[in-house]
């Protein structure tokens, strides 16, 4: 009987534990995924609410109206509303992917992901009561975003004016503040005008798709930022000198050749960089040395570093829904590892993630969580604290980050750096180019990612132009224009 009593007590603990698990798991799931469940287009309740509540306005960081609503009131007191957008067409087109539209053509944007604010779900009873007294119709919160309408309009015009780019331009531009994580521009090309009712068939290049957050691309040489950080922390590699002979065979097979950009078998030209250390090899974007470094440190070390930088991670940012980047986990032969070291193989990432990595290097190795929301104000005028910049995690130690920054500085301002076109005189610009090869595509995808190493203008810029050519020749000049604009304000 005594043993029975003890066992009964144990059973009580187990049952209490089960209930605790229920509550804790429920809280965890709701806290992390609740806003995502809510904003899905399967939410019938949200759809029905949209008929009764006027969505709040959306403003940029300087108060420029990005989206408002035009309300029509009928005789019987019912009403309908329609979204209105910024006056400037370039601004409309530049921000439509970040903002989304009321019809839901663009998914996972502010209009859907922040619907809990826009349709007044975050309002307290007090907000609703005072709203009732002052307004006839219920209206959601007005959102002030971190986006910069003026800058994004400038970039939109610059891209469309550049006749050397393919038509239509496909790609993405991300601009963020590397100190706070505030995102200034989250642009995808080609774009469309939400104010005009264009049918999808008249548009080309999947304009509704947000390439900046949802697009999955091989980063090409831009991934050398990660490879370099890993190599700098590897005792075998950190202070070594390498020789680039133009061709590197990771597994000895002639079919598996690593060559440098510009090498052509048909023309018989071989580009080689000769004697070089890790930093100089980075600035000239030497594939041989970085592929070699990747093989030398091994797949596990490179994967661990990539995971530090956010690969294979389930991104659960508060303001932005981003596709998860992946570091390949199958077929890790020396050849594949060598390719991974220079950002090819099956490595996949979004332009936003590359911008986060770049910002982390600028910020001494601390990655900031990307933010879009500055402030929400209820229709009764009550501001709501939305939490300021928060660090996401440390991706590498401060010393390594500074050394990578030196390498990135050399890549832009060094005599043979590949990113020279991004330089702005009088400012410290750091960066890295990338030219990612894609099967079945004539030209490479042009990448440039970089930042202004200056607290007066703490911005990071990532540019991706699909099928354009080399990063140094196409992406870097555009980044240069953006840097110039950012520093001249």
């Amino acid at each position, binding site marked *: 009987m005594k043993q029975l009593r003890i066992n009964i007590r144990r*059973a*009580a603990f187990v049952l209490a534990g089960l209930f605790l698990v*229920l509550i804790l798991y429920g809280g965890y799931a709701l806290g992390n995924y609740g806003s995502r469940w809510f904003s899905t287009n*399967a939410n019938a309740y949200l759809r029905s609410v949209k008929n009764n509540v006027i969505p709040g306005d959306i403003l940029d960081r300087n108060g420029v109206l990005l989206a408002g609503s035009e309300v029509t009131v009928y005789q019987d007191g019912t009403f309908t509303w329609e979204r209105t957008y910024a006056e400037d067409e370039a601004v409309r087109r530049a921000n439509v992917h970040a903002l989304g539209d009321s019809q839901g053509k663009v998914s996972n944007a502010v209009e859907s992901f922040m619907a809990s604010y826009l349709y007044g779900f975050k309002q307290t009873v007090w907000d609703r009561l005072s709203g009732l007294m002052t307004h006839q119709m219920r209206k959601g919160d007005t959102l002030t975003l971190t986006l910069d309408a003026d800058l994004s309009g400038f970039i939109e015009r610059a891209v469309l004016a550049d006749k050397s780019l393919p038509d239509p331009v496909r790609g993405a531009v991300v601009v963020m503040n590397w100190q706070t994580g505030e995102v200034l521009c989250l642009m995808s090309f080609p774009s469309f005008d939400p104010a005009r009712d264009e049918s999808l068939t008249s548009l080309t290049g999947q304009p509704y798709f947000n390439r900046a957050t949802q697009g999955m691309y091989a980063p090409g040489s831009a991934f050398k930022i990660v490879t370099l950080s890993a190599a700098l922390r590897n005792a075998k590699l950190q202070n070594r000198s390498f020789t680039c002979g133009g061709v590197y065979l990771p597994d000895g097979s002639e079919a598996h050749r690593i060559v440098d950009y510009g090498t052509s078998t048909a023309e018989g030209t071989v580009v080689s960089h000769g004697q070089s250390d890790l930093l100089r090899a980075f600035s000239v974007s030497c594939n041989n040395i970085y592929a070699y470094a990747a093989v030398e440190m091994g797949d596990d070390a490179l994967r661990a570093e990539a995971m530090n930088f956010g690969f294979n991670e389930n991104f659960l940012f508060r303001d932005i829904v981003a596709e998860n980047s992946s570091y390949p986990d199958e077929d890790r032969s020396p050849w594949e590892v060598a390719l991974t070291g220079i950002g090819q193989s099956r490595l996949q990432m979004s332009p936003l993630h590359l911008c986060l990595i770049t910002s982390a290097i600028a910020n001494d190795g601390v990655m900031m969580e990307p933010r879009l929301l500055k402030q929400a104000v209820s229709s009764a005028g009550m501001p709501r604290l939305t939490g300021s910049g928060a660090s996401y995690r440390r991706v590498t130690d401060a010393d390594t980050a500074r050394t990578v920054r030196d390498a990135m500085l050399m890549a832009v301002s060094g005599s043979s750096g590949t990113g020279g076109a991004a330089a702005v005189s009088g400012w410290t610009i750091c960066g890295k180019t990338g030219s990612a090869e894609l099967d079945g595509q004539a030209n490479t995808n042009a990448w440039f990612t970089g930042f202004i190493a200056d607290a007066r203008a703490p911005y990071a810029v990532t540019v991706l132009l699909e099928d354009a050519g080399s990063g140094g020749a196409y992406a870097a000049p555009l980044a240069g224009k953006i840097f110039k604009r950012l520093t001249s304000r």
Partner: protein
Amino acid sequence: MSKQKKRQPDQKKLLTPARQLIGLVMLFFFLGFLLLAAWMRTEGSGDWTKALILAGAVPALVYVGVLGIPRLFPGDRLLLSLANFLCALGVLILFRLNPYRGMRQTLAYFVGVVAMLLCAVFFRVIRKWKPWVILLMIISVVLLALPLVYGTEIYGAQNWVTLFGFGFQPSELVKISLLVAVCWLLSERKVIWAVGLTGVSLGLLMLQKDLGTALLYYGTVLTALWASTGSTLLLLGGMAGAAGGAYVGYRMFAHVKKRVAVWQNPWADRQDAGYQIVQGLIAIANGGLWGLGLGLGNPKVIPASENDYIFTVICHEFGVLFGIVVLLIYLAIVLRGISIARRTDSAFYALLALSCSVMLGLQTFVIVGGNIKLIPLTGVTLPFISYGGTSLVSSLCLVGVLQGISARTQADLHPAPRRPQSSRPASRRKGGKK
């Protein structure tokens, strides 16, 4: 503990803390139905008069259930109030979802309270168990075999029987008879018989494809077996057996396989197979911490919102905090039942009280865990709240068994007093003497 004549001054006081609490609970339901009446009237539904009737009837039922029963029977008041609160909450939500079913649930609630009282009296009175256990064993097996002969299939499981125009779920009623039989057999050290009876019952349930209920029976009997024998080896073996059984079930039944796949990623097929889980999660997210308010949400988009998914409706309209409170109420019921088990001197009653508590706790865990996607969904009801007369009656009967054991323990401890129900804290009485 309570051999006292000092109860008189307390009884004169109209507002004891317990009565204040019950008053608040009654007010809660009164206002709830009043709100529903107003809402239905503006919606143009003719059912608002029914809501008005319930605004009086349900608080009255709560009053009778919590304060009236102790006058007839020396029960455990805490257990009574918690169970009654949940039943009344079930009626309120069901009436909001479907007035017709809400009315039927009110009737079932009434029947359940009567059944609870009968169970309590039965367990208080009966002394010679052997003939009853034999009878209960036969009843269990016959009832479980019925659906195979007369059954109707609902949601992939054939566990309903309609007799004389009256539909019910035998596996719900067998819960009680089986637990009584198994616990008695275990307390008499007839382990083989207990295992055999459980095996036959589980086999019959498997044939009906009612895997959720089979899981509950299994878990409860395994706990009782472990508690009575104290054998860890048995417990581990039982768990391994369950894992094996789950695997066989997974391989054998297409609807089990589908449920597991949908549990892993309901979003992949959110329009079809994953629809229910996805809509449940969305409903919880819509409710947020404080809920949308009674009548203000749209819980009807969730499939089975009146049965298996009623917990998500609670979170949707009353909020997640309220949902957590409901879970804590279940936990309090379970722990109270277990404390009854620890107080009794007879191994049979201890085991039986433990099994009733475990059954209620496990059932709540299985269905709520399925709702929030912690575990794969198994179709069992949420005790006291889900729509379904048999389920409500059987849940209340489990509470009735606990009541009977509690009363019996108190009577054994204090054979002398005529009305031995009171368990007021000693300090209170001291205060009265000063």
